[in-house]
């Protein structure tokens, strides 16, 4: 960092170059995340194709209302993050802090609802351990559905927890007015990460909650 260019690391020629490098690096990380979740989506697709009825029966035990509310909350948090990046670009520190806290609250609401859903599943013996019980055409295959459900939503929730940790780390920096048009890479990078977590949920919600609704609950 030099006096003339605050926030510009010495190995970069310009703020533009620094910003684009940070952005590209973040995207490369997100691409590895796409591959990580992609493998699980593929696993889901193959077993769903193999056991459509058992998967639809399992899906009908998920709470569509809670899932839809969580979708709205998470997309809402993506909006607050997009606005937070804007506030950082404009150097509006107070707005940035408020928007980051709002994002944290929305993320907390999502995880709260998720934990309510999880505890329902535990009480209904739908967690795929030895106490798993299911009245259906092929309980073992429905158990597979719930194994995939807990695995994918669990990894998604873990990503949200990490995101919440990053927000807590960002807030003091934002409070001290560290971000401006030249130097907002941390906020931008966090934003890309949070939007990615939103993207995963955008696919998880229809695939886990909505499939098989048309077959009726009987």
């Amino acid at each position, binding site marked *: 960092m030099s006096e003339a260019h605050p926030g510009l690391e010495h190995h970069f020629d*310009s703020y*533009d*170059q620094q910003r684009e490098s940070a952005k590209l690096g973040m995207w490369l990380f997100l691409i590895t995340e796409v591959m990580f979740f992609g493998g699980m989506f593929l696993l889901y697709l193959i077993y769903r194709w193999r056991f459509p009825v058992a998967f639809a029966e399992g899906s009908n035990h998920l709470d*569509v209302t809670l899932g*839809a509310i969580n979708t709205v909350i998470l*997309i809402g948090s*993506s909006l607050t993050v997009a606005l937070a*990046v804007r506030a950082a670009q404009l150097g509006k520190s107070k707005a940035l802090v408020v928007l980051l806290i709002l994002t944290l609250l929305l993320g907390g609401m999502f995880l709260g609802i998720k934990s309510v859903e999880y505890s329902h599943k535990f009480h209904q013996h739908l967690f795929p351990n030895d106490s798993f019980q299911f009245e259906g055409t092929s309980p073992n295959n429905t158990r597979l559905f719930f194994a995939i459900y807990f695995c994918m939503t669990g990894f998604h929730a873990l990503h949200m927890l990490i995101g919440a940790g990053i927000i807590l780390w960002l807030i003091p920096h934002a409070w001290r007015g560290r971000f401006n048009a030249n130097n907002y890479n941390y906020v931008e990078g966090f934003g890309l990460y949070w939007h990615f977590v939103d993207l995963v949920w955008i696919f998880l919600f*229809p695939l886990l909650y909505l499939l098989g609704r048309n077959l009726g609950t009987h």
Partner: protein
Amino acid sequence: MSSPIEQQTGSHTGVHVESPALLLTVFGGLMVLTFLTVWVSGLDLGRMNDVTALGIATLKAGLVIWYFMHVRHSTILTKLAILTATFFVVLLFGITLADYLTRGWLGVLGR
């Protein structure tokens, strides 16, 4: 005032600040699509249920990537990296499903 590296690559991207109106419009669109996908899932469209659910999810993902993640203002290099990732995801799904989904077609012995 461009630096040597910018003169070489001709890249001077600057900072693009999105208007709140645009971000709110995109959010509104995402809400409409969320409502639509829940509503459509209650109708019995046969195989089209899966197609519409995935179609709407892809559209929503596109909106988030293009507007919220600022890809529309990104450099060619970033766009190329994202396209490459998409290509490999399509390969992963395409080749694997080409195996699993066609196994029953020829009545191969031993399966």
